[in-house]
């Protein structure tokens, strides 16, 4: 009886969004009388940071600082339609819709500015700080604040735009079953090192080293935050979490936080995160969906590491001490 060490590796590719009956998200953007911009969505921020990302995308497209944008995701009854925040689709689908809406709003904004400055709208550019300038003659300029006031009170224009992003439904080919369920994929690879106690079946994850390829990281610190949390969740899926340990029998399933186990702050593996940015062709500013895929590669990597350590293949999750001991016993017989 001994503590045995093992190392496992796994790689995944992960679709952004899914092939429903078409996968649409819509967005509306409008300016307030003082030149702030409002993004209206039905997509929901559940802690992943969607509001911040949509504000960045809108600000970048219109040409204003991010703090001039307010994102309202208040109400799915009244907001423009979204299929939902799931399948890592939020940034990709809603982001594309926001770009389209913001472009239309920007065009109206430039038209109003052109009337005020008595120039052609196509000769104007934004400085990203809240001003509109004549290309090549930046001393001729107007603030977006003044443009919005003019649009509202003088020229009777609505600085607003509509955005729509739709991945159409993909039907399988009758002969081959081939289909295109998604237009962009994120990738990841994990190496996990474990110790397995072959007497108790207990697994300790020593290190997890992850590489994630996620398109463009629109907010690098928030991406890192999600990847660190996701890597920990992957270990939790691999070793701890289930509501039905004897599926389909509900007996012994956790019923509260005391019984539904996840690693606590004292059970953390040494974790490394490397981000590779390869901008996606159809993502907003090159983004893909890192949300769910970041908790996936740790699971097969840990399973492979357990195999490397004690020579048994556990193909049911979570990889509990009981499953390991049963497998070791079967192997010995």
């Amino acid at each position, binding site marked *: 009886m001994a503590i045995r060490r093992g190392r496992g590796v796994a790689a995944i590719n992960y679709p952004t969004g899914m092939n429903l009956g078409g996968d649409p998200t819509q967005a509306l953007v409008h300016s307030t009388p003082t030149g702030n911009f409002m993004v209206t969505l039905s997509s929901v921020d559940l*802690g992943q940071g969607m509001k911040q990302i949509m504000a960045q995308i809108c600000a970048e497209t219109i040409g204003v600082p991010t703090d001039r944008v307010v994102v309202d995701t208040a109400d799915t009854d009244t907001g423009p339609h979204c299929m939902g925040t799931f399948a890592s689709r939020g940034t990709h689908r809603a982001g594309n819709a926001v770009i389209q809406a913001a472009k239309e709003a920007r065009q109206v904004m430039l038209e109003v500015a052109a009337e005020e400055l008595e120039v052609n709208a196509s000769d104007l550019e934004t400085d990203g700080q809240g001003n509109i300038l004549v290309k090549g003659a930046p001393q001729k300029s107007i603030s977006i604040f003044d443009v919005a006031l003019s649009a509202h009170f003088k020229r009777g224009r609505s600085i607003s735009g509509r955005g729509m992003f739709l991945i159409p439904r993909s039907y399988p080919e009758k002969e081959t079953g081939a289909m295109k369920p998604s237009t962009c994929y994120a990738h990841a690879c994990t190496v996990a090192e474990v110790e397995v106690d072959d007497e108790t079946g207990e697994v300790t994850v020593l290190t997890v080293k992850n590489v994630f390829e996620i398109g463009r990281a629109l907010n690098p610190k928030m991406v890192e935050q999600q990847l*660190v949390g996701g890597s920990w969740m992957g270990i939790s899926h691999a070793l701890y979490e289930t509501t039905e340990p004897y599926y389909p029998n509900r007996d012994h399933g956790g019923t509260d936080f005391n019984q539904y186990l*996840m690693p*606590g702050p004292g059970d953390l593996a040494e*974790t490394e995160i490397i981000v590779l940015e390869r901008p996606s062709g159809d993502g907003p500013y090159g983004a893909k969906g890192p949300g769910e895929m970041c908790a996936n590669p740790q699971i097969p990597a840990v399973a492979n590491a357990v195999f490397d350590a004690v020579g048994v293949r556990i193909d049911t999750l979570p990889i509990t001490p009981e499953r390991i001991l049963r497998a070791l016993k079967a192997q010995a017989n």
Partner: protein
Amino acid sequence: MAKVPVQFTLNGSEKAEFVDGGTTLLNALRDKIGDTSPKGGCHQGTCGACSVIVDGELRLSCLTLAETCNGATITTTSGLAEGGVLHPLQRAFLDTFASQCGFCTPGMIMAAKVLLDHTPNPSRDEVVEALSGNICRCTGYEPIIQAVLTAARANSQNAA
């Protein structure tokens, strides 16, 4: 049911309320007084989201009866910022991106504050120990541990 009078100091101001006998401090704070910074994650003492500080000690407000807090001095996360300036722990949570959905954050900050009040320069193990009664579903804990260590460093630099 007969109402029970309770009086305590919350974040420096006097509060007096009538509550139903058996009302938890969590419900009294959230529903009666309107301080929603303590969160109700489980209402049974297993998640730490409802943590508050009562007379200098960390307490689960979901397991504390409001009527037992008569005369007590209570601190919640909403009372930490002074004059619009964030408490060093709040600042550190922001700087280290230690909050995602934010549901655990007020409880984590309470647990961390009690730790730092007693142990201004904690080791990593002491931080882990202090946070071990608080559950987070989002961050994987590492950024929270880093936030507490960062706040401790900031405090000792200010003191020096």
